[in-house]
């Protein structure tokens, strides 16, 4: 079975500061990994995904994530955040036959001026 752990439920950060949102997964088979963002009262939007190839993945809005197989992690980073990045971020994993997705509990990023 697969599972996803997002260690931080909330991350406060000042505008223009760097941020890292942590994600760890467990799986005994190859995985696809995803980060989604959810703005208030909206559905989820894809930020970036890792399917194969380079372990450093770049996404929209200046976000990037690095797949670390030995540490079973897929942490999300941004070197300088904006107020508009305030949202909830979800890490997700798909494994095996890649027909099911498992989501973490989410991390609320609160960017302060």
């Amino acid at each position, binding site marked *: 079975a697969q599972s*996803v752990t*997002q260690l931080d*439920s909330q991350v406060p950060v000042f505008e223009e500061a760097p941020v890292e949102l942590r994600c760890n997964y467990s799986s005994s088979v190859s995985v*696809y990994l*995803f980060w*989604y963002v959810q703005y208030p*009262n*909206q*559905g*989820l*939007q*894809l930020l970036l*995904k890792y*399917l194969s190839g380079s372990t450093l993945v770049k996404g929209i809005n200046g976000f990037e994530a690095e797949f670390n197989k030995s540490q079973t992690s897929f942490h999300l980073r941004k070197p300088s955040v904006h107020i508009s990045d305030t949202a909830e971020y*979800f890490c*997700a994993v*798909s494994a095996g036959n*890649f*027909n*099911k*997705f*498992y*989501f*973490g*509990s*989410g991390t609320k990023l609160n960017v302060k001026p």
Partner: protein
Amino acid sequence: IAGITQAPTSQILAAGRRMTLRCTQDMRHNAMYWYRQDLGLGLRLIHYSNTAGTTGKGEVPDGYSVSRANTDDFPLTLASAVPSQTSVYFCASKSSTDTQYFGPGTRLTVL
């Protein structure tokens, strides 16, 4: 292109009533999903469908049923609603590149 539409946007329902949440996509994706989102729990998969005519159970299927008569529609039915089914429900479809596209959600309150 609308993507995924869900109806209703929100609903208050008496316990014991039957309710169907509607989901329609116009992207011709084969795979579709229903999730529920609860505070502190993230999204949990209720049911999924890999292609029209097939469905499967997710993590939390009890009390819910789905059908997939065609590619575009994937309704979720609560046969007899209970208060623990109060949640926000999201429908999603998956592209050939394994990206999921989500609808705007249905906020359901069962009293």
